């Protein structure tokens, strides 16, 4: 583990009193390797190491903790600070109903499943959510969301594969408004950030909906590419939050730091399984420990 590696590195620091640029070089190298192995983006790692270096130089090597433990604490605290405080992870639902939540992201990241999970969660919170299938491309995508809606007992718009997604969301929004639903959850097709037509479509869908939440759904096992993808989606849409899915696996989840770093937007929810009740709030300290290994 990184802690044991740092303990070893810092054994040589005994009696040196303060952390300085020279004596923390090896420690920084350990952290750098660990973060790269955790899939944190290469450039994000570079910046992080620089921040840690600045923060830790001159720090007293405390007598209560061994230097290795103290250094890890600095690294850990810095990572938690970067991953965001816990207050801004709540969904922003305090608006005139129906509040619109739009879900976007790459193919296969877990958007449709996450829409089902959010509907389930909001229903448990005594809200009246309405699901909208706006993916008219993927085979049986509409059916997938309808099946989930039926499983959890939430109403869903009857989209047809020939429909235009912008027409669908406009009609569904108007219907939801007239029929007293307080939250609209819109599932969109997986798309590449480099697909100009699809990025234009998602921008049009956003304009039609004026969503209060635009959630970028990302797979926790995403590698270096997380930065490019998140940045592009954010540049086009100004996302309001991130959902990290498949966190029930053993992916270290460095993509979380990369995405937060490049977009400045908070991770709001975490997918912890395939079933509809497997959605949790994001806890920065938990993922910080995981990324650091």
């Amino acid at each position: 583990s990184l802690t044991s590696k740092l303990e070893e590195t810092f054994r040589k620091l005994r009696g040196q009193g303060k952390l300085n640029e020279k004596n923390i070089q090896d420690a920084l190298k350990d952290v750098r390797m660990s973060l790269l192995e955790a899939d944190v983006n290469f450039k994000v790692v570079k910046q992080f190491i620089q921040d840690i270096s600045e923060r830790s130089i001159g720090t007293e090597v405390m007598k209560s903790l061994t230097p290795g433990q103290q250094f890890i604490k600095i690294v850990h605290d810095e990572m938690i600070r970067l991953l965001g405080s816990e207050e801004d992870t709540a969904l922003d639902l305090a608006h005139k109903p129906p509040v619109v939540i739009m879900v976007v992201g790459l193919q296969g990241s877990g958007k449709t499943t996450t829409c089902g999970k959010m509907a389930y969660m909001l229903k448990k919170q005594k809200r009246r959510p309405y699901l909208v299938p706006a993916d008219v491309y993927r085979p049986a995508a509409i059916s997938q969301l309808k099946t989930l809606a039926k499983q959890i007992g939430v109403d869903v718009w009857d989209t047809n594969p020939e429909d235009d997604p912008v027409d669908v969301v406009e009609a569904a929004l108007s219907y939801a408004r007239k029929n007293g639903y307080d939250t609209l959850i819109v599932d969109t097709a997986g798309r590449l950030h480099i697909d100009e037509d699809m990025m234009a479509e998602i921008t049009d869908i956003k304009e039609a909906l004026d969503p209060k939440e635009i959630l970028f759904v990302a797979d926790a096992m995403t590698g270096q590419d997380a930065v490019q993808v998140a940045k592009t989606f954010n540049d086009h849409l100004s996302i309001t939050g991130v959902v990290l899915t498949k966190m029930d696996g053993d992916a270290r989840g460095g993509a979380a730091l990369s995405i937060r770093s490049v977009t400045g937007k908070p991770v709001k929810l975490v997918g912890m399984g395939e079933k509809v009740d497997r959605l949790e709030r994001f806890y920065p300290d938990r993922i910080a420990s995981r990324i650091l290994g």
Partner: protein
Amino acid sequence: LLGKKTLSKDILEELETILFSADVGTKTTQALLRVIEEKLGRSELKDNDTVREALKDEIYKMINLGESEYKYEKHKPCVIMIVGVNGVGKTTTIGKIAARLNQKGKKVMLAAGDTFRAAADEQLEVWSKRSDAMLVRGQPGQDPSSVIFDAVKSGVARDVDVILADTAGRLHTQQNLMEELKKVRRTMEKAHEGTPHEILLVLDATIGQNAVNQAKEFNDALGLTGIALTKLDGTAKGGIIIAITNELKIPVRYVGVGEHIDELKIFDPSEFVEALFS
């Protein structure tokens, strides 16, 4: 007296940027650069082009296992089991392979082995229609082994050339689901001796180092014979397959380059290496 010969700091940084950004991973990157430092002469290590070409050669050697597409004619019916974690593109890749085989005049059958996820069988049904393949499906929640057993039996009886068995996505960390997959494999053997002939792991090019864990775990559980790398039409380079092919000796068969039925290519190692450096 001269000390150990090493790459110049500038070249090292440039190569690390390329390799790390491509998800090659720290261990594999370090191993590759170490080989280059041993292979090349002192002056060669200062020349960017020479180093780059040597690196491309080393990577090529690691990923070229000499066998791309599986020779489906070897068995009749040839039975392929498709596995992998959630959302990587298993079902879509099956549709593409089925279409490719259909174009070559083969009679293809699809087995809807994902009896768990919402609308999984409906999704495969669309692909069976698009690729003109037969489909065997079960009831929602039915034991996937029994659906696949029926499919193999049916495929044999109907003189099918290739059977492609879809399975539900699952994380390699889910013990019970990995056991389920082992049972599916055993059941195929019971239905028809010697099957499955190929166990294809589907990996998503956007995945980072966790892909290595996935490959190891699925390989330990089942014995993989091939890999399909999807979503290479994005910006991810899929560098994780270098470590996987080099350590596990499992060949990459196909690459997915889009969501459409014809967006499947046979893996070309030299093309892959060029793309890494572009």
